């Protein structure tokens, strides 16, 4: 089925246009959010103050919203839209129109939320914990971002469904299947945040109701907040599983196991939100532990992923004549940015994942909860593993979509960018981890805490974070230079959209993997099992609600 002619398939220019629209927004968010990140690390070093009465928590909100919500959601939707078009065929006009409606809805919502943040009416961070009360336009904007992403995702599902209809009894193309899993994961997860915003925060911020139930709101938020990080991670896994093997000239280790691991992520990334609420009152410790156990189930697909990737690398290396236990490592194409940049991300996921296991370990979380260790953790997962893979994808996808070439010079700059990022992150994330173990809090401006001895020990680490943050900002400038070059200035030509082939293409994936009734049913059952009883407890034993506060 897959032959060399297929690998030259181009994404239709009409689909390319919509993907590129997503990427423009994503990279503008990266530029803005990156600048805010730099300023944060400078403020927290204690050597710099923000000009013009701008508040630290205002720029922190911009950084979180831009990087965590805008960059990720727009990049992922743009990438998946192109990936489905490439592997399941050009989108129909109806699907493309749906995609554009989704895109503009998300963009309008982003503009509304951003305006309120810039006016300092919504310095509530991207987690917007009640009873901090932002302007209602902020909440409405976020609602539009979420609803827009549903519409956007529907375009991918429509094209996937069309492929299935035209190819009865055949497993769908792997990359499309993965994109649809991630879209479904996103839709199920965002139901929680949509519920708290629509039914609690919007009416409350509009003054229609006086009080809000804080724990219900937080629980709904974290029902969404953890699968959110898997929504970021799975597109990186798509690249690692299906694209990297093609780039290095190897094969996908196993098509079926890749699908199985994605299904396991769908099942086990949602009923786990309590592990963000381990130190909170009002939730029974037995239910916390139950969700901790479910949290750790994602270790299984993670181990499967690690095995497949390194099996692909080793088999490729040995086919090139590499010998010895690790000889294959040397023959990998280190001079190719499309491989090296995501590889740095992949390698970072080893310490990042280990840190995540610590964070989710029930009572062990007390040591690190809300310390800057956590910030260090997700700057390894999201801001290194995920984002470097996204950059690596951009280096071939942007020119593919714009009909240009990744030149040798840009390829080299891409590799430099990857290593600059790595060095910056070693400083920043490393210092954050160490400071966190000493108790330094996250999400805090510079403070000596009245000259406390413990706080004085934190300051050298904060200076190291500013050094790391400055190096990372340099990395962002490099990414932006490459992005602008590939989008507007690189020489015209054809850049491949690499999609790998399975090692045993005759062994087709079991059709049970495409049985959505089954997988959605199990997903729903697990969610109901993990949440129904504790959620009823939270509502039945609720204290009087909280009025809104504006403390910024």
């Amino acid at each position, binding site marked *: 089925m897959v032959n060399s002619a297929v690998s030259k398939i181009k994404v239709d220019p009409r689909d390319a246009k919509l993907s590129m629209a997503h990427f423009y927004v994503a990279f503008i968010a990266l530029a803005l959010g990156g600048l805010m990140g730099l300023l944060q690390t400078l403020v927290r070093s204690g050597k710099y103050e923000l000009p013009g009465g701008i508040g630290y*928590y205002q720029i922190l909100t911009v950084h979180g919203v831009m990087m965590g919500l805008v960059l990720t959601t727009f990049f992922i939707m743009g990438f998946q839209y192109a990936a489905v078009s490439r592997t399941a065929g050009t989108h129909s006009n109806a699907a493309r129109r749906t995609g554009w409606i989704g895109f503009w809805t998300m963009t309008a919502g982003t503009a509304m939320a951003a305006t309120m943040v810039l006016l300092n009416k919504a*310095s509530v961070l991207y987690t917007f*914990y009640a*009873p*901090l009360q932002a302007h209602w336009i902020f909440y409405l904007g976020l609602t539009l971002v979420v609803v827009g992403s549903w519409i956007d995702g529907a375009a991918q599902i429509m094209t996937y469904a069309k492929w299935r209809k035209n190819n009865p009894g055949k497993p769908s193309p792997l990359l499309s299947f993965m994109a649809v899993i991630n879209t479904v994961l996103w839709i199920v997860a965002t139901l929680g945040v949509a519920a708290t915003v629509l039914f609690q925060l919007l009416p409350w911020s509009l003054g229609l109701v006086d009080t809000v139930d*804080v*724990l219900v709101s*937080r629980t709904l938020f974290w029902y969404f907040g953890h699968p959110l990080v898997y929504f970021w991670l799975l597109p990186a896994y798509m690249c690692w599983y299906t694209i990297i093997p093609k780039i290095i000239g190897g094969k996908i280790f*196993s098509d*079926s196991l890749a699908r*199985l691991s994605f299904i396991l992520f769908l099942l086990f990334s949602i009923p786990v939100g309590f592990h963000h*609420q381990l*130190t*909170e*009152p*009002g*939730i*029974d*410790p037995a239910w916390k*532990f139950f969700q*901790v*156990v479910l949290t*750790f189930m994602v270790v*299984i697909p993670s*181990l*499967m992923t690690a*095995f497949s990737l390194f*099996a692909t690398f080793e088999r490729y290396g040995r086919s090139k004549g590499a010998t010895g236990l690790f000889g294959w490592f040397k023959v990998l194409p280190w001079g190719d940015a499309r491989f090296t940049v995501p590889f740095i991300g992949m390698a970072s996921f080893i310490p990042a994942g280990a840190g995540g296991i610590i964070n989710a*370990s*029930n*009572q*062990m979380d*007390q040591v690190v*909860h*809300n*310390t800057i260790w956590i910030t260090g953790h997700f700057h390894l997962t999201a801001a290194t593993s995920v984002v470097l893979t996204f950059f690596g994808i951009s280096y071939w996808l942007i020119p593919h979509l714009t009909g240009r070439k990744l030149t040798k010079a840009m390829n080299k700059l891409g590799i430099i960018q990857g290593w600059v990022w790595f060095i910056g992150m070693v400083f920043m994330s490393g210092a954050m981890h160490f400071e966190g173990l000493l*108790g330094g*809090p*996250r*999400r*805090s*401006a*510079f*403070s000596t*805490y009245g000259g*406390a*001895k*413990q*706080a004085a020990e934190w300051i050298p680490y904060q200076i190291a974070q500013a050094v790391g943050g400055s190096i990372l900002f340099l990395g962002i400038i490099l990414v932006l230079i490459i992005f602008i070059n590939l989008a507007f200035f690189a020489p015209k030509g054809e850049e491949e959209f690499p999609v790998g082939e399975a090692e*045993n293409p005759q062994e087709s*994936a079991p059709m049970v993997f495409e049985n959505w009734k089954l997988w959605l049913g199990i997903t729903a059952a697990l969610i109901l099992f993990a949440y129904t009883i504790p959620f009823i407890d939270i509502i039945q*034993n*609720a*204290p*009087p*609600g*909280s009025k809104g*506060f504006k*403390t*910024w």
Partner: protein
Amino acid sequence: MHMHKFEKIWLIFGVGCLIFFLTTVGVSAFYLGNKPPSCLTTVNPEKVDQTKPFDKPGLHKVEGKDWDYELVYVAQAFSYNPAQVKVPLGAKVRVIATTKDVVHGFEVAGTNINMMLEPGYVSEYTTTFDKAGEYLIVCNEYCGAGHHLMSSKIEVVE
């Protein structure tokens, strides 16, 4: 669906580690009593000052309980009451805290006391202060413009 022999070994090893690890965490939590703070008591957030024990913040000696002292805190943007307290070395203390306004953190740096304070809920944690010295309490959950100024102090004295 075919699975490579090495992958089977790898997964059996991984899942085995996972079971061992979760058992350790579970036994520590439910048999040894090291559960994360999960107090289920509620309080009217607008009547905190009139509600026991929050009407008298500070350290109190208690009799006939599993702990020797109760250390009561009321948090509000951007301070803790009391702002400073002395605790005798080796005392087993029940820390009891709540907030009058938004969500705050309650972290005693350098110890395992780390809990969320949420309006309407009481947070509790029992611990023994067995090392003398000064401990900084910081708010580790964003609560507004003065979040980084919100702190208190525990002095563990002989």
